[in-house]
């Protein structure tokens, strides 16, 4: 059974004559442990798709099954739990807490809950895995863009989620740094995580396509297409 399954998911913004169909009856299945890149032009609906998968937005119609549960009908309280336990978010702008050190940022999803010593150990281990093990107490403002994104990746993994959602994770990075971030994400995919990356960067799509676990999806006008030539003709 697919880890993620979308059935005729639509998302419509606006009303009356100003209706925008961000997603148009999308059907999609994603297996556990795969690396999926979603590419498409601006306004094509790729971020909307990511937000719906991450339960930050709800579809106008259709069903979103994650691990067999339809998250499109869950109440807000359950969605919080879903986000905490199932999803790890990585954003283009990192969104780290400026007044908290690196380990504090990694632990931030757990702040409202009782942070155990094992959580601290895990946070340290994650920071080591992203190459920042020697800077646990550093301030965020002293980090470069690549380092900030590494901290964001570590933060997204602190709850040991099944799915990592990355929205333009290399958008603010130079190509070398971006490459290292992608390699880092792929490393976690090899450890069993399902990774969905929204990107404009064709190189990421190519790397994903070449990877044994990789898969590319193109989206335009709210419709998906798995055909790699689709974008060449349609963009």
């Amino acid at each position, binding site marked *: 059974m697919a880890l993620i399954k979308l059935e005729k998911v639509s998302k419509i913004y606006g009303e009356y004559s100003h209706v925008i169909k961000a997603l148009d009856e999308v059907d999609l299945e994603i297996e556990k442990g795969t690396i999926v890149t979603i590419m498409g032009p601006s306004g094509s609906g790729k971020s909307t798709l990511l*937000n719906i998968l991450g339960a930050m937005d709800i579809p106008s119609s259709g069903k979103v099954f994650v691990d067999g549960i339809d998250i499109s009908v869950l109440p807000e*309280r359950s969605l919080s*739990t879903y*986000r905490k336990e199932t999803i790890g978010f990585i954003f283009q702008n990192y969104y780290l807490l400026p*007044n908290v050190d690196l380990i504090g940022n990694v632990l*931030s999803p757990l*702040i*409202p809950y009782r942070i155990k010593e094992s959580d601290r150990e895990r946070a340290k281990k994650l920071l080591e895995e992203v190459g920042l093990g020697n800077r646990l107490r550093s301030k965020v403002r002293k980090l470069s863009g690549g380092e900030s994104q590494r901290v964001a990746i570590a933060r997204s993994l602190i709850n040991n989620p099944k799915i990592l959602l990355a929205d333009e994770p290399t958008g603010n990075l130079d190509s070398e740094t971006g490459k290292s971030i992608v390699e880092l994400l792929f490393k976690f995919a090899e450890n069993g995580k399902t990774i969905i990356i929204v990107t404009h960067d064709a190189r990421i799509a190519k790397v994903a396509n070449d990877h044994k676990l990789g898969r590319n999806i193109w989206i335009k006008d709210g419709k998906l297409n798995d055909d790699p030539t689709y974008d060449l003709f349609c963009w």
Partner: protein
Amino acid sequence: MLIFSIKNAFRKKAIAILSSIGIAVGLMLVFVVGAFTAGVTADFQVNLTKTLGLVNVIEKSQIGSNSKLPIDFPDTLLNTENVGDKILGYSVEAELPPYFGSDYDGQMVEDRADRLIVKGLNKTIDESWEGPTSRIISGRAFEPGKNESIIDSRIVDVAQFNVSIGSQIKVNLDPGGITSVNLTIVGIYRQDGDGAPPFVPINFNLFTDITIAWDLLEKANETSNYYSLMTIQFNVESNAETEVLVDNINELSDNGTFSPVFVSAYSLAAFLEQIEATFELFNSFTPILSIVTVLAGGMAIIVTQLMAVSSRMKEFAILKATGWKNRHIFLNVIIESLTLSLLGAVIGLLLGISLILFFGSNLNPFGSVGAIITVGGVFEVIAYAVGLGILGGLYPGYKASKVRPVIVLKGE
């Protein structure tokens, strides 16, 4: 969560501290007013106890030297039914008209309106009463029939003229001071202050023998052989009992029992109670002051927190995206505003205690004022701070908790 929220409260240090100081000033006001209210109330209670059963009797509608009670009035009262049997003791004094001591007006302390009042005392009665003649701290009491006097101990520090034992005090026998008599100071009696601030003028009493006082009045062609005031100590256990006796005397007087003289009796405790009632009326405004303080402080926190929350919507959106629930965000904002208000309470308490210590010390130019710092007062301030923190954090917390991550992050 707690440490995280406390740290967050000070992310914009200047705004946070200014907000706390604003709250501190309000809470300090509540604390100081409360402490002084408690102090004054306690003083009233002490004075009420001290003055239990004390009643002054003067000639009706007359005060000072204008009050002229016949010298047999004490005996009349002692023999009056339902009054005399309750009298434990009494004292009498005859106050001389103001011009007798007018040479010393304004000579106590510069720019003050202190006066020297000459009074006659019946030494025998006064000693049994533990009046001035039995409170001599230097020298001795005057002797009956001699031109001698004893003087208020407080005048020693402030007089601009010689008040040492053996010196002469000039007593005028006419308003212009053309004719005068000298009284020799033979003793200084202890006189405690009445608690009034120093800017209130003081009447310093100079006591001489009652027969000398009457003699001086005769020489000045004034009416003599009278008492201005009779102070009675009744054997009572409550102010209510005293009031009954006061009413008795006034009724008897109005009925002509003491005719041709008519008197007014008043209880000192009742007088204090009247002042206390006025004070309590003033105190009734304290809750209004507190409410205004709480509202003003609440507004300060709401504004501070709204600013903080508005500038951190993305942060709350991210926290929600990582699994924080609405109530976690709300609680975080409430803890932040509680932190600011409790810091305000600490600053307010420290400022308040400093002010109280200053006003209670001799450094206060208006004289030391009694205040009581109570545990209840401290808890009241903390309770106000907690109320402020919660009140001030409610709306910003609600606003922050309702943030929709997708809307905020889409606006990036």
